[in-house]
């Protein structure tokens, strides 16, 4: 940008409104449950959720594990699935972007599998792996691998063709161009994939646990539904949302660190 940055002072109302809005939202939520407009069997008040949160920190009843154990199980599954999808998806995407043979062989199969939502694999997964951790990791891996491949692929394809021609002129081999030119130029897209894939993994985790699990945050939610305990459902949702937001924020910070100097 050729402009000098000008500090515009925000009006006071604009700084106050967000706080006011969140406050109104939570008090309205509390009110409609407390006054009985929405029965407490359908929606839990924020205060009830906080109370349950404190209880669940130490009490494994009625779903069999304390909150930390649920979070640990979910986190472990998501993390393994995420790492596997990176380890598989990024190299595949990069190779697909540069080598015609890899692209020709892998793309039809990838296009075949891509539009199937990962949770549609759940029944097959149960047939193949049972309901253990392998099955869930497989579902999470499926969710994460698609954005990895796409981003790495597009990153390589967007390499500046002038640079490739220049490298050719200087007599670089295909492999050299790939390693020294395409991969570095695809890096911003690859880092984008890190974040997108993590979000996909985390979303699919809930799906995988909703159907078959004995521990984990998704399990906490579906247990809450089966026992008709809305506070447990909401607690599970808040935990999932919160952890997801924290992870997303951490990755974004990391990305900014690693990509300092590269403009996207």
């Amino acid at each position, binding site marked *: 940008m050729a402009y000098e940055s000008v500090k515009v002072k925000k009006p006071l109302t604009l700084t106050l409104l967000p706080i006011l809005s969140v406050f109104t939202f939570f008090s309205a939520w509390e009110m409609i449950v407390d006054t009985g407009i929405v029965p407490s069997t359908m929606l839990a008040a924020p205060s009830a959720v906080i109370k349950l949160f404190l209880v669940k920190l130490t009490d494994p009843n009625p779903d069999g594990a304390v909150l930390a154990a649920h979070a640990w199980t979910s986190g472990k599954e998501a993390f393994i699935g995420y790492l596997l999808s990176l380890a598989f998806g990024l190299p595949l995407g990069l190779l697909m972007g540069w080598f015609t043979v890899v692209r020709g062989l892998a793309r039809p199969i990838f296009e075949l599998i891509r*539009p199937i939502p990962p949770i549609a694999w759940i*029944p*097959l997964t149960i047939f193949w792996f049972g309901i253990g951790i392998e099955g869930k990791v497989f579902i999470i891996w499926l969710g994460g691998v698609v954005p990895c491949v796409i981003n790495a692929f597009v990153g390589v394809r967007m390499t500046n063709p002038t640079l490739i021609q220049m490298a050719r002129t200087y007599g670089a081999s295909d492999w050299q161009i790939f390693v020294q030119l395409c991969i570095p130029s695809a890096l911003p897209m690859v880092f984008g994939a890190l974040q997108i894939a993590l979000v996909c993994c985390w979303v699919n985790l809930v799906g995988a646990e*909703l159907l078959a699990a004995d521990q984990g945050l998704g399990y906490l939610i579906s247990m809450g539904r089966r026992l008709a305990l809305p506070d447990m*459902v909401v607690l599970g949702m808040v935990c999932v949302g919160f952890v997801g*937001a924290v992870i997303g924020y951490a990755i974004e910070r990391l990305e900014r660190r690693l990509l300092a100097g590269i403009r996207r």
Partner: protein
Amino acid sequence: MGDRAIANEVQEAVGEKKPMTIYRVITNEYFLYCVSTVTFLLVWQVIGQSDMFKGALASPVQVVLRFERMLTDTLAGLTLWGHIWASTSRVLIGFALASAFAIPIGLFMALNPYVDAIIKPVFDIFKPMPPIAWVSIAILWFGIGEPSKIFIIVIGTFVPCLLNAYTGIRLIEPELYDVVKVLGGNRRDEIIQVSFPASFPAIFAGLQISLSNAWTCVLAAELVASRSGLGFIIVQGMKMSDTSLVIGGMVIIAIVAWTTSLLIIILEKLVCPWKRKLEGF
């Protein structure tokens, strides 16, 4: 391809005649596509027929035969077309509802800082929650009928629609506004002439994401509880240990989801013909 003119650039395609050699045929991308597809199906067929997965993997031939039967026979009172329509109508209703609300709200938020200040923080609380997590609460609220499924789809599609409409306007180059100002336009001209058209591509990208989210959501809802739809076919297959039903259901979901996303691409081409295609997927 001949010369194509986009805006004021002329792109010249230079054709180069190369001799037809075996090496070139083998490394041709489309030839490889065929090879890979055929190999994939063959390997699948062989593995499916052998006892490697102990009957937990139906071969492609079995799947096709099973679904040929489904076209006339009924499963839970509906033929295959009935199930496809059940899922598709849910997706379309939820999708239409969500985009009808989310896009205007997103545009409004991006254009007015006060609306932004009020809605954004509450929206940010809901944003990171996976739509599938709403399945449970939807069932608590609406039972297992049609409304709960549509509710889940609306939730799942709302976030990307709103977010993309919002960022679409936020990322418009300020120079474009300056042009309108220089030409003597007022705020209204800015919004109608610049903001809306410039945000269309982002909005359509949001619709694409929404649509694939909508399919995930409808599946999740149908897997948990339903009597019709493609997710129901998969669950039935699982309950009856009929893997050809499961795999066929997955394939049909892929086809239907792909078709609906194709419709959005066509719509996008009609609405914003100036958008250039990016190389890649």
